[in-house]
C-alpha cells in the first residue's frame, strides 16, 4: 500500500482564463498532520475543493491510496474517508448538538422514525472520542464558534474519516480556544487519522504540523518537514519577500500637549469596573484579555455606543461626554469593529461609498453630493492606503480581507479622526496585507499624531506594534507591559492565568 492517502500530481485548474492552480503536486500521508499555508488567493481553497471532488482539475491527476481516480465526485471523496470542514462549518444551526452528530448515520439507515435515546448515544460516543463534553440538547446556533467547530469535527469523525481537512479553523478563535483545537487535532491523529490544516497563521503551523506545503499564486513554492522552517522563512515563502520586524517606538513627546485621550475611572455596567487610560499623540497601546474581559465594551463606550458608561473622558484636554456615535465621531474618535463583515462594511456597495459613509457631509455642496469631489477624495484615499481595487466603483465585497480592512480604516481617516480604536485589526487578514495594515497604523501614529488603541489576541502583533500593552480581566486592567521589552512568553503566561 502506498504511503500517501491522497496525492495530487501536476494538477492545474483555471477559472475564466485565470490560473487558480498551476502544476500543483501535493501528498498527504496517512496519519500525518500536514499544514497547507498560503495567503488569501494563493489557491488553498481550490486545492481543498479538488480533494473533496467539488472541482475537477483541468490537468493532472488525483490519486487516493496510490490509485488514480477519474472524476472524483463529492460522494466518492466522502466514501473514501475525506472530510472537509469548511469555514462556515455547514452545521444545522437550529438543530441540537445531538441531532447534528447523529443525523448522517440515521439518514444512511433510512429509518422513518427517530429513536431519541439512540440519537443521544451516538452523539455522546462522538464527543467522547474527542474527550469533550458539550450540552447535547443545546441548539448549535447558541454555541460559541469554538464549540461549533468541535461539533463539526466530531461529525466528520462519525463519517469514518481518514483525512480531515480544516479550512482556516482558527480564524474566529481566541488563544485558549486555539490551544484546545490543537489538542483535539493531536487526539484525532492518535487515532491514525490524517489532518490537513489550511492556515496562514504561523503559530499553529509551527506548533502542530509535521509537514508543511507553502503556496503562492496557485503554485507550490516549497514543501518539507516542519523542522526545516522558521517563522521568517515561511513568511518569505508565502509573500515572496521579507517582512520588517522592527519594533514600534513612540515618537518623542511634547510634554506641554495634553493627552489625546484621558479616561478616568471609566465604568460600563456589567463589563468595565473603573479603568484609567491615557493615550498621547503617537501612542499605540495594545489591549488584550479574554473574550468577556470587558475590552470590547471599553472600546464601545469610547465610541459612544454605551451611553450608560460612567467616569470622565477628556479629549485633547477638553472634557467630553460620549453619549452617541455621532458625538464620538465629532470628537475625533474612530472605531474599527471586531466583525468586519457584519459591523464594518456595506458589502454590496462600492468601495467609494464605503469609505465616504461617515463623511458624506464633507462632500455635500448645498443639496447634492459633489460627485467629482467624492470620486477625487476616494481615489486619493485608495492610492494613499494602497487598496488594490480596479476603481472606487468596485463593490467592496469583491476585495480581499486585507483590502476591506483598509477601506474601513480609510473611512475614519476621512473623518479626520484623532483617536483610532481597532478591534482585531488583522483577524482573517493574510500575512502580506497584515504587514501593510501595521505599516499604515504606525504611520498614522507617527506622522499624523493619532492615538491608537489596538485590541488583539495576537500577542506577537501587540509586541511588535505597540509601545505599551495592557491586559484586561473581568473589567479591570490587571497588567501592563512596555512594548518591545516584554516577551511573548511573559504575556502568554499571564494570559493563561486569567481564567
Amino acid at each position: 500500500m502506498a504511503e500517501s492517502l491522497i496525492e495530487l500530481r501536476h494538477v492545474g485548474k483555471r477559472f475564466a482564463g485565470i490560473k487558480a492552480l498551476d502544476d500543483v503536486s501535493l501528498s498527504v500521508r496517512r496519519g500525518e498532520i500536514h499544514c497547507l499555508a498560503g495567503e488569501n488567493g494563493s489557491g488553498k481553497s481550490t486545492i481543498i475543493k479538488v480533494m473533496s471532488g467539488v472541482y475537477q482539475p483541468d490537468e493532472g491527476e488525483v490519486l487516493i491510496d496510490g490509485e488514480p481516480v477519474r472524476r472524483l465526485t463529492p460522494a466518492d471523496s466522502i466514501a473514501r474517508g475525506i472530510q472537509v470542514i469548511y469555514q462556515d462549518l455547514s452545521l444545522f444551526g437550529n438543530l441540537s448538538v445531538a441531532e447534528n452528530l447523529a443525523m448522517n448515520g440515521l439518514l444512511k439507515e433510512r429509518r422513518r422514525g427517530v429513536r431519541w435515546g439512540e440519537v443521544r448515544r451516538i452523539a455522546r460516543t462522538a464527543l467522547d472520542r474527542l474527550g469533550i463534553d458539550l450540552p447535547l440538547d443545546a441548539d448549535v446556533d447558541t454555541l460559541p464558534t469554538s464549540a461549533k467547530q468541535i461539533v463539526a469535527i466530531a461529525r466528520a469523525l462519525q463519517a469514518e474519516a481518514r483525512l480531515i481537512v480544516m479550512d482556516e479553523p482558527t480564524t474566529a478563535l481566541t488563544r485558549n480556544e486555539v490551544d484546545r483545537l490543537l489538542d483535539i487535532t493531536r487526539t484525532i491523529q492518535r487515532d491514525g487519522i490524517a489532518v490537513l490544516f489550511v492556515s496562514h497563521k504561523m503559530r499553529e503551523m509551527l506548533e502542530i504540523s509535521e509537514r508543511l506545503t507553502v503556496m503562492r499564486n496557485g503554485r507550490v513554492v516549497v514543501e518539507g518537514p516542519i523542522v526545516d522552517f522558521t517563522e521568517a522563512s515561511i513568511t518569505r515563502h508565502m509573500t515572496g519577500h521579507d517582512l520588517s520586524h522592527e519594533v514600534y517606538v513612540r515618537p518623542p513627546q511634547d510634554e506641554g500637549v495634553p493627552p489625546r485621550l484621558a479616561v478616568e475611572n471609566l465604568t460600563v455596567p456589567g463589563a468595565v469596573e473603573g479603568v484609567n487610560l491615557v493615550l498621547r499623540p503617537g501612542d499605540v497601546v495594545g489591549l488584550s484579555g479574554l473574550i468577556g474581559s470587558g475590552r470590547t465594551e471599553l472600546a464601545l463606550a469610547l465610541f459612544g455606543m454605551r451611553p450608560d458608561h460612567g467616569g470622565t473622558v477628556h479629549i485633547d484636554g477638553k472634557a467630553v461626554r460620549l453619549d452617541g456615535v455621532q458625538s464620538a465621531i465629532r470628537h475625533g474618535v474612530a472605531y474599527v469593529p471586531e466583525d468586519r463583515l457584519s459591523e464594518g462594511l456595506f458589502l454590496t456597495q462600492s468601495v467609494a461609498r464605503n469609505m465616504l459613509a461617515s463623511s458624506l457631509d464633507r462632500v455635500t455642496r448645498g443639496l447634492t453630493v459633489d460627485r467629482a469631489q467624492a470620486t477625487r477624495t476616494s481615489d486619493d484615499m485608495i492610492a494613499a492606503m494602497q487598496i488594490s481595487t480596479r476603481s472606487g466603483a468596485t463593490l467592496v465585497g469583491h476585495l480581499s480581507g486585507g483590502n476591506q480592512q483598509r477601506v474601513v480604516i480609510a473611512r475614519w481617516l476621512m473623518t479626520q479622526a484623532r483617536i483610532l480604536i481597532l478591534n482585531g485589526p488583522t483577524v482573517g487578514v493574510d500575512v502580506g496585507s497584515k504587514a501593510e495594515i501595521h505599516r499604515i497604523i504606525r504611520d498614522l501614529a507617527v506622522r499624523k499624531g493619532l492615538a491608537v488603541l489596538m485590541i488583539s489576541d495576537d500577542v506577537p502583533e501587540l509586541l511588535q506594534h505597540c509601545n505599551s500593552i495592557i491586559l484586561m480581566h473581568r473589567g479591570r486592567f490587571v497588567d501592563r507591559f512596555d512594548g518591545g521589552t516584554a516577551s511573548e512568553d511573559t504575556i502568554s503566561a499571564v494570559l493563561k492565568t486569567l481564567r
Partner: protein
Amino acid sequence: MTAQIPTNRAPTTKPGHSLLRFVNQDDNIVQLVIITALVFVVMSALSPEKFLRYYNFESISYTLPELGLLSIAIMVAMLTGGIDLSVVGIANLSAVLAGTLFHSLAPGASSSLGLGSVALGIVLALGVGLGAGALNGLLIAKLRITPILATLGTSQIFTGIALVLTGGPALVGFPAAWNFIGNGKVLGVAFPFVLFVVLALAIGFLLSRTAFGTRLLLIGTNAKAAVFAGLDTERIVFQSYVLTGLLASIAGLILSGRTNAAKSDYGTSYLLQAVLVAVLGGTNPAGGKGSVLGVSIAVLALMLLSSGFQMLRFSNFLIDFIWGAFLLLVIAINVARNRRRL
C-alpha cells in the same frame, strides 16, 4: 476568506459577449425596458386598431400616476429593508379628510368651492400624509416595531378613521380645482402624469444625488454597519417613512381628483400591486437597492399589459390573474439570472 478568484482582477469578457454583458449588468433596467417593449409589440399586434389609438395612451397617462406614486412610496420604505402597507390607507384618509373639509366649508355645494378652499384641502391632505408617515416612522424607527406589523396596524387605523368619517359610502362632489389634479391637462398632457414625472424626478434626485439618499441605501445594505459608521439610522429611517406617507397622500389626492370621490376602501387592490411593482422594478425587499427609474418602467409595463387585455375584452378577474402570473414570471427570470451569475 481564502482563494476565491480575485474579482477585482475580473475575467475579461470574451469578444462578442458585450451585449450579453450589458443586459446582464447589475440593475435590471435593460431587462425591464425589453419586457415593456415586448408587451407593447405583442399588444399592438393583437389589437392594433384599439391599442395604438391615442386615446389608449391618454387613458394610461391618467391612471398610471396613482399606482406609480404608491409603488415609489413602497420602494422608498423598502430601501431600508422595511415596507409600508399603510400607503393605500394614507391615500384614502387624505382624500376623505379633504372631502370632509370641503363638505363642512360648503354643505351641499362643495363642488363650487374656490381656489382658497382647495389649497386648504391640499395642505390638509399632505399634512395627513406627513402625520401618518411620522406615526409609522415613530413606531418603526424609535419603537423598533417590525415594519410589516407596524404599518399593517396603522393601515387599519387610517382606514378605520376614514370609515368613521364617511360612514361607509363614498364622499362625492369635490371642487373643480381639486378635480383638475386628477383630470386636468397641461399643454395637452394629463396633469396627474405631469405631477408624477415631476415627483419621480425629484425622488430620483433625492435618492441618487443627496447624502440622504446615499445614507438610506447604506442603512438598507447593512443597518448594523451603518450604526458603526455613525449614521443616525433612527432619524433617517423616520424621515424615509415620512416621505413615503407624503407620496401616498399625493396619490390619494390624484385618485380622488380623478374619480371626484373619496372612500375609505378605494384602491385596496393597489396595495399588493404596488408592492409587486416595486419589486418588479428592481427594488430589493431586503433593502439597499432600488431606483425610481426601475419602478417607473415597471409600472408602465403593467399599465400597458392591463390596458391591452382590457381591449381584448378579457374579464377583469382574468386580468388580475395575468398580472400575478406576469409578476411571478419576471421575478423568476431575475432569480434565474442571479443564480447563473453565481
